[in-house]
């Protein structure tokens, strides 16, 4: 395929080699990818919170958020849970195997808007993956942001990914990391319960704060109203949503939620814009 084709054809798939595979949990791995085409590797840029369509030869594509740091585009990391037809097949791959990448797509986190404000990051389960890049972005510009509070909930302790990263973040200046598990074992040293209970354990200056949230929709539906009651405007809360995405560019119709295409209008969306649709059945 010529370069011109790859630029004009949004369906073009770019081969990328798995250079590293890191086991995060029983069914979750992080894959570090490098484009086979070196110029492609050099020009590929992304924003924290965007996603790629990850392709497995002969099987198909699946939308996966980018975990790596947008300031280090030489690394392209995706954390993938083996949950469906394609992701289960990907789980069998090893370093040296080749995947396809199409992207990056979608709207990322509002990191410019967040500048000079306090940032509260609320995630649940694998929902922590799409904010890792945002946290790294902020920490590279630490002086430009206010306090950072990272609240992360998991079902069971073995669901906790990126343990070392959480430890590093915890040691950063003006940063709090709070973890919770609602099905803990004896080893669990953190909060017991659901992630929204962590709101009570942190002090928040509501008018100085911007919230980045990613996890199951039920977490957002139940969690955001608590934050709003604490005085954070709905316009300062951003959520990253999940829907079935096939094309990534707003053409296939699958990822619609009300008037939005989650792939192109999202996946990161301002809460006040999606609030009417989040609680509706069949939307």
């Amino acid at each position, binding site marked *: 395929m010529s370069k011109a084709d790859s630029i004009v054809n949004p369906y073009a798939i770019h081969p990328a080699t798995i250079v590293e595979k890191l086991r995060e949990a029983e069914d979750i791995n992080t894959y570090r990818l490098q484009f086979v085409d070196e110029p492609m590797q050099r020009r590929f840029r992304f924003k924290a919170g965007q996603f790629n369509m990850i392709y497995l030869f002969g099987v198909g594509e699946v939308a996966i958020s980018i975990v790596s740091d947008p300031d280090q585009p030489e690394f392209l990391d995706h954390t993938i849970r083996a949950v469906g037809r394609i992701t289960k097949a990907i789980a069998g791959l090893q370093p040296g195997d080749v995947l396809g990448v199409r992207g990056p797509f979608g709207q990322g986190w509002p990191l410019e808007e967040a500048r000079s404000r306090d940032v509260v990051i609320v995630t649940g389960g694998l929902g922590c993956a799409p904010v890792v890049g945002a946290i790294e972005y902020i920490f590279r510009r630490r002086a430009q942001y206010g306090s950072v509070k990272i609240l992360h909930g998991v079902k069971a302790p073995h669901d906790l990914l990126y343990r070392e990263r959480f430890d590093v973040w915890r040691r950063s200046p003006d940063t709090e990391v709070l973890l919770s598990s609602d099905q803990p074992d004896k080893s669990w040293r953190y909060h017991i319960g659901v992630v929204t209970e962590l709101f009570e354990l942190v002090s928040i200056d509501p008018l100085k704060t911007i919230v980045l949230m990613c996890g199951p929709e039920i977490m957002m539906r139940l969690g955001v109203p608590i934050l709003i009651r604490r005085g954070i405007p709905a316009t300062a809360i951003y959520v990253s949503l999940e*829907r079935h995405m096939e094309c990534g560019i707003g053409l296939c119709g699958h990822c619609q939620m009300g008037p939005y295409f989650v792939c192109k209008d999202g996946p990161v969306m301002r809460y006040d814009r999606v*609030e009417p649709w989040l609680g509706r059945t069949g939307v």
Partner: protein
Amino acid sequence: MADDIHKVLPTCHLQRLLDALSAKGYRVVGPTVRDGSVVWEPIRFVSDLPIGWRDHQEPARYRLEQTGSQDIFGVVHGPQSLKPFVFAPREPLLKIERTKDGFATRPMTPQPEKVAVIGARACDLAGLAVQDRIFLNDAYRDPYYAARREGLFLIAVNCTRALSTCFCASMETGPRAKTGFDLALTEVDDRLLIQVGSEAGRHVLEGISLSPASDELIGEGATCIDTCARSQVRRLDHARLPQALYDAHEHPRWDDVAGRCLACTNCTMVCPTCFCHTVEETPDLSHQQTAQARLWDSCFTQEHGYIHGKNIRPTIKDRYRMWLTHKLASWIDQFGMSGCVGCGRCITWCPVGIDLTEELSALLTSGSRSSVTSPQVEGS
């Protein structure tokens, strides 16, 4: 230009236009009778067209009858709009082959082909304009659609007869073709009034000696079209859309229509604007080569709303609501235009005769027990 040039061609000389198109290198496609309905087929002669046939359409009914007249364009339309010409029901996207580095992909973008479609209706042109907005004028321009669209030459026929299922007048999309055609014909008795809509249209007519149309004939054609508009028995009240339909999300009528809907996907397949598609991967047996193709999909299928382990729209009620709300409401937020052009095909081809004009009317007039907050949508 569209309003300026009007010519007249005796109906018995229509072959000259077909020949002129062929001489210019166009493959000519027109309405033909097949298996009891009208479908697009390649045509060479005027006699290939459905001369003397008429269609009768009602909810869940489509019938052709011979009238014995010499009318060429007596049939309004069949199940196909212009959609299949540009957004192909099955479009090969990529061929992907294993290489020593992994794999190489080759786009299967179609070669632009000069295709002249004779007999497109105003609603079809409006549907094509909606699809152009989606596939060509968004952040990403679809190269497959663009290649098919490029070579399309459109000869519209203004409607002088409305079906019982038509409601283009209320959607302001017909029965007169206003834009988007190269030539537009109005059949007035044994004459065809020809209006030029583009430079390409003018160019095609250069090869035929034609008389200018008299003001009288132009007036006669206009009267026929106006009469057709006034004869439409269905209308769709879109004045309060999209908000009124968003507000009706909990309306009991959705249960009622879900009880009748078979989720057969017919309405989405015949709709000139529905654009949902899915991608099919077909590896060869040796697993050395694989092909991707996109296929029309429908929001009425189980799989459409599937997301790892659950279905966002598990019931027929959810899916009918999704379709109607998208078509008539959220489409406006997404693309600044309605997703419905008033062709009435979804009414005719629904096996149980569900009528979206009737459903919308019921949803907007009575029994609303909306309890949800009105959505705030940007730009609305």
